[in-house]
């Protein structure tokens, strides 16, 4: 965190790097469930995001018939982080990742291996195995994981250079379910880019994640399902920037007793 405290001006560039690629925006946006691709495009522009996730499993069909939607995404000029959303086995996830690499020409993949239908909780055993296979095959894996420290260690041993713990179950909008766990993950891996992924419902949740020292936030439903997705995208961008700036600004310490912000010594005593 030393680098951050060295920043002196508010508008100094503060990029974050994933696998050596620097981006200025710390908001990563999913592309599913928007009312239309046109609104998605506007939301992406309003958010200033530079990385969007794209789901392949479902849209791919046969013979790459999802091309027109993917082309719309490519034309936005943002980086694509293909995901393996909906995959439940290591094999499925690996196959989907390979297809993504071919389609989008990127080694990046957001790795999801879903273990349970009601919570869409990651299957962390399958996740570690798939991460190992993909890393060995030259992929740069962004694993969607829990806040579990041991799993995080194993993902890093498997070759992951980014971790993406959940805030809460996908699409739940509950915010940061386990702030202690997320803080402790941050403290254990000070040098690894950490992204809160999933469960974020409000800009304040995203700001809280950033204030904990997280490097970025990835979300989808909170923007896509808002009444006005474009406005919500902008709100999140501002919250994330605010949270990040707060970390750089080095917040005050919390204390138990009041500390007057105005000196009382020498104050005129007003008689009754």
């Amino acid at each position, binding site marked *: 965190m030393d680098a951050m405290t060295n920043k002196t001006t508010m508008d100094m560039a503060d990029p974050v790097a994933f696998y050596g690629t620097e981006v200025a925006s710390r908001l990563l946006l999913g592309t599913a469930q928007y*009312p*239309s691709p*046109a609104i998605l*495009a506007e939301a992406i522009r309003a958010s200033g995001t530079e990385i969007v996730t794209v789901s392949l499993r479902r849209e791919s069909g046969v*013979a790459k*018939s999802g091309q*027109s939607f993917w082309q*719309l995404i490519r034309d936005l000029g943002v980086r694509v982080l293909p995901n393996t959303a909906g995959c439940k086995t290591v094999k499925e996830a690996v196959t989907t990742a390979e297809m993504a690499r071919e389609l989008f020409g990127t080694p990046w993949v957001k790795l999801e291996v879903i273990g349970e239908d009601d919570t869409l909780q990651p299957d962390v055993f399958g996740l570690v195995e798939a991460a190992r296979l993909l890393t060995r095959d030259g992929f740069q894996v962004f694993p969607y994981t829990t806040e579990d420290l041991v799993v995080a260690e194993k993902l890093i041993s498997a070759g992951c250079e980014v971790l993406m713990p959940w805030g809460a179950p996908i*699409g739940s909008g509950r915010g940061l379910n386990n702030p202690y766990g997320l803080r402790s993950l941050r403290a254990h891996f000070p040098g690894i880019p950490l992204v809160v992924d999933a469960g974020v419902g409000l800009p304040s949740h995203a700001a809280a994640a950033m204030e904990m020292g997280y490097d970025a936030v990835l979300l989808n439903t909170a923007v896509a399902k808002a*009444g006005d997705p474009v406005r919500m995208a902008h709100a999140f961008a501002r919250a994330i920037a605010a949270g990040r700036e707060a970390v750089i600004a080095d917040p005050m310490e919390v204390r138990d007793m009041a500390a007057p912000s105005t000196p009382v010594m020498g104050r005129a005593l007003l008689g009754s």
Partner: protein
Amino acid sequence: MISNQIEPTDTAQRAANAMRVKIVGAGVAGLTCAHAFARRGANVTIVERRAGSGQGCSWYAGGMLAPWCERESAEPIIAELGLESLAYWREAVPDVPLEGSLVLAPPRDLPDLRRFARRTANFEWVDGARIGELEPDLDGRFDQGLFFPSEAHLEPRKALAALTRRLVDEYHVAFDFEADGFDEEDGQAGQADGADLVVDCRGLAARDVLADLRGVKGEMLVLYSSEIALRRPVRMLHPRIPVYIVPRGDGHFMIGATSIENDERGRVTGRSMLELLGAVYALHPAFGEAEIVEIGADVRPAFPDNLPRLRRRGNTLYVNGLYRHGFLAAPALARRAAEVAFDGAHFPEVMDEDHREW
């Protein structure tokens, strides 16, 4: 709602002066355009590459005339077009019952029901007892729902067959089925053949000239059950796909529809069927014993904003991009198309030529 109606009992002189209109495509857009132009006195011919009308993606439509429900995810213009279209269908074809729509959610998805209510209008909250009154077979299964009393539904295949008959009998519209020359490969829709105006209603096949059209795949199935009866469409809310069940009469139910960003025709996946059947099974376990009569999939034509468009280029008028709203939007769009051609009208809400922002 339908203005300037001219009945087809006109004089020979009028017929000789009539605008000659060639409509390409006999889906819901083509047929409603034929109606709109013919009732304004045009001499209309429809060419269609398939063997009959309504056999493209109209064939797989749900046929819900639900302008208020659609407001949950669609722009206000869809509701506006939908209101006009609802009135149109009630007048144009038989069997368009105004039974309303029911929106339900399993207990775990009640937040989605609240969200639906927040985004829509013209409904009433209904409790378990009221749901049981509306749909006796659902008595005791749900505690909360939304009832939209002013919505209607139709059977798309029957409705388009009835409209086709009416176009032939009342308006002497000529149909040229299995016609060549405008299939997706060579894309020659613009051959006027002596017509004053070509109205291109080819749907996704018009992508050869409308480059910003894309396909959005939808999958559906039809079930038969003698154990359960519904009077009206029921929507089951679900975080990922909204599933609807439309009663088709005689124990048949149409279940739809997925919405997938790709343009492959015909292929139905196991996961999609699992999701559709899961929702219908949650509505009533009797559907677990229902017979699967049909499964199908086709591709909806959509522009990037998922809104329909009229575009005029030379003597061709393109009517396209109806997306999920074919029956809901086509008649209102067709009426506007005819006013563009006859009156030089302009409708900015559906005519901002090349709105692409990509």
